[in-house]
């Protein structure tokens, strides 16, 4: 259950406050409060454990976590328009970061200057994986959009395993929970309909491709519950409100190992992408030390002890060890792990930057029909 996580965050929060109160006495660092925006739930907890706690211990800073990444772009716009930017550091998707960067809402980053070198001295620009460093963006993790299912809801000898199965109501009946956005669903619909994954985005630029994706989605539409918050899918699966749910892989992993939920991930046609930090305009001086710390090799590796997202630094991968609570090996749960990665699709940010407005409107119209 998600609830236990919430408790834990609350408790660690209280504990951390105690620690920071102690630290006040010993640290010479000018303490400040950092307002850090992230996704909430298990993901925020992993950041809290891996970055925030050691940082607060080290500096005595207080860190306020704000769960607004789902609407981060809107928040940044509003704050910048109000001339009162209260967020100091924001965790967001590269596609949003691109728009925010074009609008001048966030700071351009000089990665080699700002970020830590790898332990062997490799500069950040070479140590981070491809696409991890944008003009205004520095990735911290590679995560994946996957579909998971509750294994109790299918016979043991006939468990779903491919994305086609998600669209197969006959053999795998039950409700599906999907993200209430065209992103991922369009891709999966086409792949399930037999489109080669290299051609998915080219196809989606054509009217036929879009229509084909919607036709495929039509076949399951009546069985879909649409979710909007990342914490919903594991909850819906746990309550057996749905048999399948699309989700961020880390949340499912967390429910599986920390809460012993009988979930399984369908790695077939996972859509992976990066996620990371941006700095609102004018906040660079305030957060640059924290950013340097939170993106170094050790911190990214540490984060992988709490959630199954791959570190965005090559040098961190070797340090990924076992899950902090249960001690299970993390590597096989990473999106980038060989067998998981075979049929993976990389989300095309440029495509979505252009077509998101139009496809979202069409998607909403389709939903309301």
């Amino acid at each position: 259950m998600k609830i236990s996580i919430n408790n834990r965050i609350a408790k660690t929060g209280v504990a951390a406050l105690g620690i920071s109160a102690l630290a006040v006495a010993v640290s010479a660092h000018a303490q400040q409060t950092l307002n850090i925006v992230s996704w909430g739930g298990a993901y925020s907890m992993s950041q809290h454990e891996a970055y925030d706690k050691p940082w607060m211990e080290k500096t005595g800073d207080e860190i306020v976590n704000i769960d607004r990444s789902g609407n981060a772009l809107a928040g940044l716009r509003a704050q910048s328009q109000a001339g009162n930017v209260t967020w100091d550091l924001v965790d967001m998707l590269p596609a949003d970061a691109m728009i925010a960067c074009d609008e001048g809402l966030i700071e351009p980053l000089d990665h080699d200057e700002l970020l830590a070198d790898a332990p062997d001295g490799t500069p950040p620009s070479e140590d981070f994986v491809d696409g991890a460093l944008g003009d205004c963006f520095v990735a911290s993790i590679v995560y994946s959009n996957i579909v998971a299912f509750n294994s109790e809801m299918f016979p043991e000898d006939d468990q779903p395993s491919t994305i086609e199965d998600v669209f197969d109501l006959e053999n795998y009946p039950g409700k599906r929970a999907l993200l209430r956005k065209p992103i991922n669903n369009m891709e999966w619909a086409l792949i399930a309909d037999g489109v080669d994954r290299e051609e998915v985005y080219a196809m989606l630029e054509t009217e036929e491709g879009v229509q084909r994706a919607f036709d495929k989605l039509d076949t399951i539409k009546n069985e879909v519950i649409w979710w909007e918050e990342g914490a919903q899918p594991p909850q819906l699966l746990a309550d057996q409100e749905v048999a399948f749910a699309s989700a961020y892989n880390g949340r499912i992993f967390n429910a599986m190992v920390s809460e012993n939920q009988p979930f399984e991930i369908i790695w077939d046609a996972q859509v992976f992408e990066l996620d990371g930090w941006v700095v609102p305009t004018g906040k660079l001086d305030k957060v640059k030390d924290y950013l340097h710390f939170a993106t170094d090799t050790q911190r990214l590796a540490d984060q992988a002890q709490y959630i199954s997202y791959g570190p965005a630094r090559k040098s961190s991968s070797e340090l990924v060890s076992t899950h902090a609570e249960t001690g299970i090996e993390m590597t096989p749960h990473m999106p980038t792990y060989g067998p998981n990665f075979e049929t993976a699709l990389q989300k095309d940010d440029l495509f979505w930057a252009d077509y998101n407005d139009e496809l979202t409107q069409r998607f909403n119209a389709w939903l309301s029909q």
Partner: protein
Amino acid sequence: MSESSAAPLRTADGVPLKVSLRRAVRRSRIKALLLVAPLLVFLIIAFVMPILEMLWRSVDNPEVSTHLPRTVSALEGWNGESLPDEAAFAALAEDLRQGQQERNLGLLSSRLNYEKSGMRSTISRTARRVGSLEPPYRESLIETNDTWGELDTWKLIKREASPYTISYYLSAIDRQLSPDGEIVKVPEHMQIHATLFWRTLWMSAVITGLTLVLGFPVAFLLANLPMRHSNLLMILVLLPFWTSLLVRTTTWIAILQSQGVLNDVMVALGVIADEARWQMIHNKMGTIIAMTHILLPFMILPLYSVMKTIPPSYMRAARSLGGKPFLSFRRVYFPLTIPGIAAGGILVFILSIGYYITPALVGGQSGRFITNYIAYHMQTSLNWGLAAAIASILLFVVIICYLVFNRLIGVDKVKLG
């Protein structure tokens, strides 16, 4: 003597009484105004000006004229029949170059992308490379991105150069401007807002009808019971009225969801099979049930206050004159309750079409209202102009209902509690 009778009455200090009275009236008028003034000023600043700002936003169109000033002036004399000349392309290159330096092209590209998909990346890709482009710009821009070679792109820029636009309103009713400036329907698969306006209206009508059907007998009972009993029962009406909206919505989630109380009871009683649990929430039904519950007190209270004023002797008189119970009710009692029905009905309807929280939480996909799209465009799609336009249309509908309400009942007759 006739003179003295024509002489005006005077007060003790010799001022004509008429003048003195007028002065007194003026004084108390000014006094009254002064008492109201602070609140009036406050509301104008904190409430009226925001509404005006929103109305203004729904037509405001600064992006193109601010960020492409040179292009706009170069296009002034352009006839729109063939691609503009080199001067316009050079102006565009210069505008984009400046925008790229100042990093403020984002709003422009979002604005144009609403009208023509693909403009966002066209602008951002071009802007990134514009520093290295060489004249003639016509060729080099089209080579960078062939969207610049399309006549429609330039027509769009010229059209959106105007500081005001109706395109948000058009979009709010599923219309758009064609490249040639005619108003056309958007393709069917893109139509959404008009559907939602209709759905909001008819579902609100259903909710209003349900509250009337459920509220009428209760109001009748309350109005005809002795004070002692009716006061006690009134608490049952007022308790939900005073309970947090979120609490009431939460309880319906707990009751109606497929693993919820009602389904569990039904399964336990053997009415339905465990696999065939009713889907009562996250659809229209969820919205209708929860909102009927939430708005029911708003129907009962005005009905009650009207029924309270109908003397019971009327019914007795009708009966004694030989009317059958049903007939006497329909011909005598019911017509007298119409003001209450009108008041309650309009009140519930106004509240219902503006509801956001409950449809968002229990409406799922099919039970959403147009208000949910205002929030969606405010917070997710970030198309604030469109959000303002939809909100303005909704506001217009509400004001009409309000005026009708005011005409029929009068706001100062509204009673609370």
